[in-house]
């Protein structure tokens, strides 16, 4: 590495640090680390999974939002005509978020009471996995013009990178083959720090795969991903916009009528190969749970003695009743933020449609999308009984509530994507009401998802009324704030 390269990389890292600080990303990550640490302290056995699924991915979405924003603001184009090499660019983007991830993982692992001497390999696994994921996300974002395009493309590599390790962790996959996926070794190392080998017949670290070999293999993949990201980022950035198959805002069209928006959104879904799977995801989710969950539950009971049947409602709430509307809410927020950052919202503001109708249209379609998604996924999954129909009805409006919550705190894509994780905590927190009995459970009543959880057992009118009032209040309060912010 030349002196110039070191200097340039240092300069880029300094800029990145300032930019991330201005977006308050370190503060958000610190806040999340506190929440995760509290969870780890309460559920030590869940710590490796918490770190693997939540902590390690904390920067994955942020790096995409930063890259898409950088492209739109022209910074990427400027860097492409500067002496900066693609490798330096990738290092500057990946390292700060990688460091934040590792720093966030330290208190979580300690709170979960990681075994003495296992902290270093676990943190190395966290660092390398984060680097791999960040590089993959950066490569994808470098080829997408919008955040919607990035977020809809990202799941494809994430499914094997998370699905295989988790399947190996519960014993569904065994032997060395799952370790071909590099993140399998990372999760195994994390579990190793929490005494999993002694409890688990399928020991996470096979004798033939020592920790160093797993880390070296993970490092190799992280390096390959970084090179791939460098190549993707090095593609010449034209000064003029290139045609893209990803999301194009309907608000750029000349016809500002609500029906044309609907047509444009439908065109986006039909024409965009990435958006179609998002639209079909409730069907996929329902199908996977219908055909995959019962044998898994039976298998866990038979081989591990783990009885999940009594937790079915919790799983159904998490994976279907709350997950579907919250996903719709995120998509809705990202659509609005893409419109905001691209300047399309400015066009809407001075069109006959106006911001209020725009917002109403977006929230309406999000609610309808969540309702349709729930109507498909809930019965198909086999986990949501007919008696829980009130919970499903009260869950659909969580989509606009979440969209509004993100828009209430975000001024752009990066803010929005950074806010998704912390805002998700109060959304999922009411599931704790399942365990909190008596009057104490009502402490969570102001949270919008509380009523859907309470209404699970039966459609009691009082819960329905309470839910409607609570959700209505949240929507009105947040919508007023969002309308004010968007109008500025």
């Amino acid at each position, binding site marked *: 590495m030349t002196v*110039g390269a070191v*200097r*340039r990389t240092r*300069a*880029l890292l*300094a*800029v990145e640090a*300032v*930019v991330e600080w*201005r*977006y308050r990303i370190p503060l958000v990550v610190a806040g999340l680390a506190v929440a995760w640490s509290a969870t780890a302290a309460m559920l030590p056995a869940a710590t490796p999974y918490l770190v693997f699924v939540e902590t390690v991915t904390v920067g994955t979405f942020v790096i995409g939002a930063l890259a898409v*924003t950088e492209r739109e*603001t*022209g*910074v990427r*184009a*400027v*860097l*492409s*005509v*500067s*002496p*900066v*090499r693609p490798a330096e660019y990738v290092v500057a983007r990946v390292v700060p978020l990688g460091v934040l991830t590792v720093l966030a993982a330290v208190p979580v692992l300690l709170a979960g009471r990681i075994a003495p001497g296992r902290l270093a390999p676990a943190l190395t696994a966290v660092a390398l996995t984060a680097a791999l994921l960040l590089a993959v996300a950066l490569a994808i974002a470098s080829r997408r013009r919008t955040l919607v395009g990035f977020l809809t493309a990202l799941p494809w590599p994430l499914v094997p990178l998370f699905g295989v390790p988790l399947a190996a962790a519960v014993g569904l996959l065994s032997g060395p083959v799952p370790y071909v996926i590099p993140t399998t070794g990372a999760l195994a190392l994390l579990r190793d720090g929490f005494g999993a080998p002694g409890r688990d017949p399928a020991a996470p670290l096979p004798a033939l795969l020592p920790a160093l070999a797993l880390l070296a293999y993970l490092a190799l993949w992280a390096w390959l991903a970084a090179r791939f990201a460098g190549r993707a980022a090095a593609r*010449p*950035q*034209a*000064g*003029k916009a290139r045609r893209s198959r990803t999301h194009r805002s309907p608000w750029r069209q000349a016809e500002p009528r609500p029906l044309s928006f609907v047509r444009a959104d439908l065109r986006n879904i039909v024409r965009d190969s990435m958006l179609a799977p998002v639209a079909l995801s409730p069907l996929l989710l329902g199908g996977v749970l219908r055909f995959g969950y019962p044998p898994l539950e039976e298998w866990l009971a038979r081989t591990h003695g783990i009885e999940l049947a009594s937790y079915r409602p919790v799983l159904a709430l998490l994976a279907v009743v709350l997950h579907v509307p919250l996903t719709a809410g995120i998509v809705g927020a990202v659509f609005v933020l893409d419109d905001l950052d691209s300047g399309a919202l400015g066009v809407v503001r001075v069109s006959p449609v106006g911001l209020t109708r725009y917002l109403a249209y977006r929230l309406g379609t999000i609610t309808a999308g969540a309702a349709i998604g729930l109507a498909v996924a809930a019965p198909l999954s086999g986990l949501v009984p007919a008696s829980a129909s009130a919970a499903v009805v009260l869950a659909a409006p969580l989509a606009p509530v979440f969209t509004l919550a993100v828009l209430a705190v975000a001024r752009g894509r990066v803010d929005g994507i950074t806010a998704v994780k912390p805002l998700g905590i109060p959304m999922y927190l009411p599931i704790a009401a399942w365990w909190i009995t008596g009057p104490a459970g009502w402490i969570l009543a102001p949270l919008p998802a509380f009523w859907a959880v309470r209404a699970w057992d039966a459609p009691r009118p009082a819960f329905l009324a309470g839910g409607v009032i609570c959700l209505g209040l949240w929507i009105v309060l947040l919508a007023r704030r969002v309308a004010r912010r968007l109008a500025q």
Partner: protein
Amino acid sequence: MQEFAIEASGLRVRYPGTEADAVAGIDLAVAPGEIFGLLGPNGAGKTTTQHVLTGQLRRYEGRAAVLGRPVGEWGPALYQRIGVGFELPAHFPKLTARENLAAFAALYDGPVLPVRDALAAVSLTDVADRRAADLSKGMKMRLNLARALLHRPDVLFLDEPTSGLDPANAADVRAIVAEQAAAGRTVFLTTHDMTAADELCDRVAFMHEGRFAAVDTPRALKLAHGHGTVVAEYAENGDLRRAEYASTAVPDLRRLLATGTVETLHTREASLADVFIAVTGRRL
């Protein structure tokens, strides 16, 4: 043999999936210190040409060289020697104007313009500590220009530097570009702004459908496509009248001037916009 700052011969670019060349075999030679303007309608091939010359587009046929060396051989070192200003402002929105320039300046190896001098050069000293996102469009464009000048490049490629600016801001930008040429820098200007091209450029090329339709000095082009006549507007019995004369030497014109009633007097050379329409058959 003269070494040109920018050279192209037989330069040809065709994008995948298209049937026509975006750049259809152009020849070009720009001398050091020259301001060369590339004019033409959208889709004429101007930006593609600039992308080839700045190393952003690597798939081309023919020869393209900057500062005596083929563009493809330069690698990233090219960007130590050239500055590129984009049509749209490019900056970190969360950083101030000063922080933006400092951030970009740190990427170059050689001596760079002190940030305060760069800000002063584009009259942004007063807003140096304002975030880039909060600057007006004119300020952003000037910040854009300051960024391209930071590392004192030998060649400046500017794409529509006056785009969307009010006349005062546009005049400021033109003055800055003229100063760069006076300091010995070569400027390759891509623009629709006929005033900027006329005022700044030593030579201009009109590009149409990937080819150069005409290349010359603005003066020569205007004379070649204009009329050699003089038009006088004068007052007569309270009315404004107009008369055209073959030249200023015509006795009738001299007699008219002697009456003291002439209000305006114009030669009828073409404007650059007229030249463009004449050579391409299209409007700008």
